[in-house]
């Protein structure tokens, strides 16, 4: 579904993406992890045509990125950013309806079909009861779910999320990830999720891509990727990796400096 071949990108000289090739198939739930500055967000921008690679190619559903228009891309891929700063007093419903724009003509109003899809997505993300509230009046967790509903309303084949739970409390972090899991399993939504939280990513993602200074350092199941060697080499931190008692997913327990002494 998403394929990159040898892409390179630099902002001002030094390569931020230094030869990345991977393939994400339909229905996969992939997590992208790595330290700050490893190029995760840049990769996301490259995959959504905000930036153009200096060399190499990206293709979505077999089509070259360069030949896909922004609107068409928006119908295939939806992005959930880390934080949304909505400037004007739109209601939750209006925000979710904006997800339908890639499917609407420039001069048209929402049809009944659009209203129904929006309604359904709000139900799926459990924000339907806030539909008429202003986006500025809902909590952080609820706002993220609204944004996810908006992304869903685009009816994409794949969703890219940039640290979607970075500013949420533990309950909401779980809620959002459960939602993603159910979308992935029940609707077959392809999900690519950038995350700083190694444990959450390990718990929910079936595959992890570990980025290190613009290159893929490891690509496989969470157990394969999150080894003490990889963590030490890429993050510069000593850690113990254990298995989660219920799920069996790897749990990374970093050792602080005082403990090492």
């Amino acid at each position: 579904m998403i394929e990159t071949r040898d892409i390179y990108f630099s902002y001002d000289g030094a390569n931020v993406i230094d030869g990345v090739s991977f393939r994400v198939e339909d229905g996969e739930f992939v997590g992208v992890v790595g330290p700050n500055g490893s190029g995760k967000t840049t990769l996301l921008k490259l995959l959504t045509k905000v930036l153009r690679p200096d060399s190499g190619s990206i293709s979505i559903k077999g089509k070259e990125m360069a030949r896909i228009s922004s609107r068409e891309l928006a119908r295939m891929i939806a992005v959930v950013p880390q934080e949304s700063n909505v400037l004007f007093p739109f209601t939750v419903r209006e925000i979710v309806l904006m997800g339908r724009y890639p499917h609407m003509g420039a001069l048209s109003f929402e049809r009944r079909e659009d209203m129904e899809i929006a309604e359904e997505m709000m139900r799926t993300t459990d924000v339907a009861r806030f539909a008429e509230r202003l986006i500025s009046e809902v909590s952080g967790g609820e706002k993220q779910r609204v944004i996810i509903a908006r992304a869903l309303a685009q009816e994409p084949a794949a969703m890219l999320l940039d640290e979607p739970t970075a500013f949420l409390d533990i309950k909401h972090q779980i809620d959002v990830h459960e939602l993603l899991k159910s979308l992935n399993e029940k609707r077959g939504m392809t999900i690519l999720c950038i995350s700083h939280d190694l444990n959450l990513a390990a718990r929910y993602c079936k595959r992890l891509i570990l980025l290190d200074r613009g290159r893929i350092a490891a690509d496989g199941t969470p157990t394969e990727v999150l080894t003490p060697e990889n963590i030490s080499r890429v993050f510069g931190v000593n850690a113990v990796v254990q298995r989660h008692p219920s799920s069996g997913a790897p749990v990374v327990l970093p050792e602080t400096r005082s403990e090492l002494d």
Partner: protein
Amino acid sequence: MKALNSRRWIITVAVMAIALAVLMFFAQFVGAKYVSPANFFRGMTHAETVVLVQYHLPRVLVAALVGAALAVCGAVFQGILRNPLADPFILGISGGGTVGAVFAVAAGAEVVVFGFSTVTVFAFIGSLGALALVVAFSKIRGTVATHNLILAGVVLNAIFSAAILFMMSIMPFVEMRSIYQWLMGSLYNAIALEPPQIGVAAVIVFVGALLLLAMAKSMNLFALGEETARQMGVRAERTRLACLILTAILTGVAVSITGPIGFVGLIVPHIMRLLVGPDHRILLPASFFGGAIFLLVADSVARSVLPLTGLSLSELPVGVATALCGGPFFLWLLRARSRRAIFGK
């Protein structure tokens, strides 16, 4: 507020259009001396006809056009630049227009294009020139960044102000006084326009506003953030440039006829946002009519309140009237509609 649909749109636009038409009709009877509308049907004296047609009608038409243009441009700038304090002059367009006008007078030029006076022609060129400068100076790596635009606009405004002060200090007093009214912003200059010129201005304003309306959905998406808008299919660069050019033309037309009239472009979009919501598909037409009505009323007050009360025979500067009419109304509306905040946060 329920979500927008075509029926609500049509009703809102129709109501506002009718309100504007009615106000335009009655505004003509307001002036240094009040003429009773009843006379319109019973038959007016020659003096009344002349005053109405030659002095009030052009002002009423131009006030509506300029108010509409400024308000629409203000709404567009607030959306595209993601800045609730933006007004049509933020990027230096009125500064450029004023430089053009002052230069025309200082140089003693006589260039009349299609019946538009020299000052108007030079002011329009100045406005477009200002936009070109702002865009040129805010490009990084070939793309125009929003924060750069605003910064470049602020700096250019400062430079223009200095240039204007300089030119005015070396100009003979009499010549400076002749454009004094233009500099303060006044609908008085509208009486120099004949129907063909008003028609040309109307066509430009109309077509420009319609073209901006076509980009309303993209402006909605800009509210989510420029990157998000991009990721949802908006060609941010192209859209922004198109909006800048169109607003420069509309604002340029407004400023070159009447001089810079402030406050309309800033406050009317906010008022309409409180009344009809932030969706640009309805906000733009609402601002269009709202701005027209607002400036119409303000000008009617400006030209009549002093002569009618006998305080002075000259007019109130329209900028004073807009502030006096709009300010308190907006504050009241803010309180009454405190549910809907101006800003998202």
